[in-house]
């Protein structure tokens, strides 16, 4: 009993310390996506380089692909752009760029100014409705979608090599 009286407060303190340290390391701005594990919401949007054609996720069935939400007005997008270019060229992954609330001219110029387009297609989401369907709350955001059309991962903020190796590479390996 006496021993419990000494150790119990220490135990409680220890547990609280672990909880608080963990709390400090969590980023409250990073929200888990409820869309992970669900089928990627369907949409049909005109393309940046050809407004008469449209892109729809259905056309990607059977392939693993990456949906990158970007905008010419998005500062953090500049950081991840070279990586996207590299993955598209070296890793042969299909990246679709969703131009979020952007004027076509601006998106076009931004892509030219930043080393070209890593995207297989650039659907234009001018009013941001498709992004809302995907639960996007800031740009850049990136989704990994598997061959069955299911969202496997969502990344908030600029993507890095760790994102690719952990969440894309395992899916594209034969």
């Amino acid at each position, binding site marked *: 009993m006496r021993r419990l009286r000494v150790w119990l407060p220490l135990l409680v303190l220890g547990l609280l310390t672990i909880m608080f340290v963990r709390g400090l390391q969590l980023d409250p701005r990073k*929200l888990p*996506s*409820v869309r992970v594990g669900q089928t990627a919401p369907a949409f049909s949007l005109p393309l940046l380089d050809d407004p008469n054609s449209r892109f729809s996720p259905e056309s990607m069935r059977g392939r693993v692909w990456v949906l990158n939400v970007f905008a010419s007005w998005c500062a953090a997008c500049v950081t991840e752009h070279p990586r996207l270019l590299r993955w598209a060229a070296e890793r042969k992954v299909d990246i679709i760029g969703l131009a979020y609330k952007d004027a076509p001219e601006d998106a076009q110029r931004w892509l030219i100014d930043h080393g070209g387009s890593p995207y297989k297609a650039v659907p234009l989401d001018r009013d941001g409705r498709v992004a809302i*369907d995907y*639960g996007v*709350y800031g740009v850049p955001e990136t989704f990994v979608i598997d061959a069955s059309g299911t969202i496997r991962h969502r990344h908030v903020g600029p993507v890095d090599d760790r994102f690719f190796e952990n969440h894309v590479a395992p899916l594209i390996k034969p």
Partner: protein
Amino acid sequence: MTTPQDDARMKQLAAELRCLVCQNQSIADSNAPLAIDLRTQLAEQVKAGKTNTEIKQYMAERYGDFVLYNPPMTAGNLALWVGPFMLLAVGLMAAAVVIRRRKRVEDASPPEATRQALEARYRNESKVSE
């Protein structure tokens, strides 16, 4: 044109939904572009005659229960709903134990007459030892 009822319903819903960009504001209070877009969605759905439950479900399907300022109780957040009451119960039990123990000590203390005699003896003894 929106009817006054629709307008009131929209305002009430907007106040119950959290803005994802500036997380401590509702989408009624926030002027973040996303909050404005979500308000537009809200207005359209209210106008289309969707019920409050349907609209909230639409938001939660996309952004999770996190957008709801009054989230439903689920297995995942059960601890948050029940936790405070559990802590209160633990505290009350601890208090009860302490109070009961203190009372037992009081009951066990010697009656007044004996206590005075004991005190007197103690005083005399300490005098002797001086």
